[in-house]
């Protein structure tokens, strides 16, 4: 059963070849056996999962059609709130924090008959690109345990690649779903901003954050996105009017589809193997009938600055709620109220979180607001205009996800700027609120996975998913898993 796609597992459960509890137990056992190596899980909710499995089994046996993924175990990035199950954001600040409400996506998973079996490791408060900044140790890449899994949803990608879970939910603020997918050789979707409720997602940068699926192939991810998308009165930025319904038909070719290839993404600062794999994918898509045309991506120099200004500004504001009073870590040393705030935050937050809070406080501070924060918001408008223009010419844009494959653990932790520059191909998607799917498209000389992304216009998920189905129908990179699994 381990190794079935989520949709295949759901079908086996529906036809009662496999029991829900049997599936849940198989994955729990696998996590128990191998997670000490990957460190992908922060919490395993065995008891809750087995109880839920019984409830869901009864409904399925009674013939209730809950969803396309009913009975399938799932794990969640540890910034998604779960009632009664510890939710830490991989931070000392939230060690032992047990939410008293579910994120809206968790309620939707429950209605869909999915079984949450645990919470996944990440960069602290989703700030990072390697899943090393968390307080509970780094996630290891299943393809090479001496390397990072990517981040910030590194636990999600590693758990799927290591077959610890059929499918997972992560979040993407500047590439946090797509980049770990690329590093671990799995498939993921960063949905259009406003298509999935953020209620109960512990905020990093609210105007950029979006929850999305990581799974074994595009069909699994599309099925999960259908379940979690849709309006929510608890999140007024969730502007979608109804959940996504994706067509069941799988096209074989891409006739009439125009794909833009940003030529300046391939000039410098990109590994030769990544470049070759993504360009080979462009040829594959062309041979499937798509028309591939190069263009020059505008504003490239300004993407990383605009992203880090906006994200850190919002982070400094969002994380001001952690004061040691209502929830979260409280320093035992604070004798006055001011000391409680300052010491709790100083002791509770890790280095990268403090770095981003400081940066955010700086760009918002009087005297610098116009030069940085306002400027970044203006750059964002220019970027959105540029994408609007591009999508008049192209159906989708093909791009690398990350300039490199997975690097060694510890290699970049002391060089924050170098880490930030790794986000060059992903951040514009969040700044413009667009959808993107990340797909495996090759391996480098050391056998490490390489990923590509398709970027589409807002709410053009259907188009991206159909193109991804064609690509995965013609290639087998997405089916590869590390030999030991």
């Amino acid at each position: 059963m381990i190794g079935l796609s989520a949709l295949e597992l759901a079908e086996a459960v529906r036809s009662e070849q496999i029991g829900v509890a049997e599936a849940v137990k198989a994955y729990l056992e696998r996590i128990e056996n191998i997670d000490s190596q990957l460190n992908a899980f922060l919490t395993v909710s065995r008891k809750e999962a087995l109880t839920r499995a019984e409830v869901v089994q009864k409904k399925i046996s009674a013939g209730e059609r809950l969803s396309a993924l009913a009975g399938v175990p799932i794990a969640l990035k540890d910034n998604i709130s779960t009632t009664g199950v510890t939710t830490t954001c991989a931070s000392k600040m939230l060690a032992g924090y047990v939410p008293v409400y579910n994120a809206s996506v968790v309620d939707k998973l429950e209605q869909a008959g999915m079984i949450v079996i645990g919470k996944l490791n990440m960069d602290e408060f989703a700030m990072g690109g390697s899943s090393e900044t968390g307080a509970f140790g780094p996630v290891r890449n299943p393809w090479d345990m001496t390397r990072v899994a990517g981040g910030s949803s590194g636990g999600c990608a590693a758990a799927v690649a290591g077959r610890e879970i059929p499918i997972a939910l992560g979040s993407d603020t500047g590439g946090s779903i797509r980049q770990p997918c690329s590093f671990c050789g799995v498939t993921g979707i960063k949905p259009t901003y406003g298509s999935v409720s953020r209620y109960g997602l512990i905020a990093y940068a609210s105007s950029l954050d979006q929850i999305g699926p990581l799974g074994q192939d595009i069909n699994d991810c599309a099925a999960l996105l259908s379940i979690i998308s849709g309006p929510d009165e608890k999140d007024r930025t969730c502007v979608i009017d109804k959940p996504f319904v994706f067509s069941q038909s799988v096209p074989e070719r891409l006739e009439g589809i125009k794909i833009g290839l940003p030529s300046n993404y391939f000039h410098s600062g990109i590994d030769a193997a990544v470049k070759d794999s993504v360009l080979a994918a462009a040829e594959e898509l062309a041979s499937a009938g798509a028309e591939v045309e190069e263009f020059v991506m505008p504003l490239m120099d300004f993407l990383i600055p605009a992203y880090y200004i906006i994200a850190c500004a919002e982070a400094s504001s969002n994380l001001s709620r952690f004061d040691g009073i209502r929830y979260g870590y409280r320093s035992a040393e604070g004798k006055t109220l001011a000391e409680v705030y300052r010491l709790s935050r100083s002791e509770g937050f890790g280095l990268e979180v403090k770095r981003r809070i400081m940066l955010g406080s700086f760009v918002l501070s009087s005297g610098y607001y116009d030069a940085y924060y306002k400027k970044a918001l203006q750059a964002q408008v220019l970027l959105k205009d540029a994408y609007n223009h591009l999508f008049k010419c192209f159906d989708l844009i093909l791009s690398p996800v990350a300039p490199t494959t997975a690097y060694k653990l510890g290699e970049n932790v002391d060089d924050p700027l170098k880490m930030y520059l790794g986000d060059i191909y992903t951040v514009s998607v969040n700044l413009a609120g667009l959808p993107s799917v990340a797909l495996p498209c090759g391996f480098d000389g050391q056998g490490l996975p390489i990923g590509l992304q398709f970027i589409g216009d807002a709410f053009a998920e259907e188009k991206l998913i159909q193109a991804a189905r064609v690509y995965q129908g013609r290639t087998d990179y997405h089916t590869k898993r590390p030999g030991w699994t």
Partner: protein
Amino acid sequence: MKITADEAAKMAALAQIKMNEREAAEYTGELNSIMAYIDRIKVLDTDDIQPTIYVLPLQNVWREDEVQPCLSNEQALANAAETEAGMYLVPRVIE
């Protein structure tokens, strides 16, 4: 833009983060290397561009002003470090 150690200390104070001298020196160096890169944005021509917070069209949504289920007092206090008599407990603020 060069951030001085004093400015870094000011930022830390604004963010309610306590820092010793060694940490302040480290952060000053790192923030300067990051800001040197971020400063690239200054050459971008943004005259006449209206800044925006959300890139998607958001509209005000009205609803009736009705009482909805909410957290109980017990739930709201469940994760607090110190509570007393159904309230959060903090060090004395007024002598």
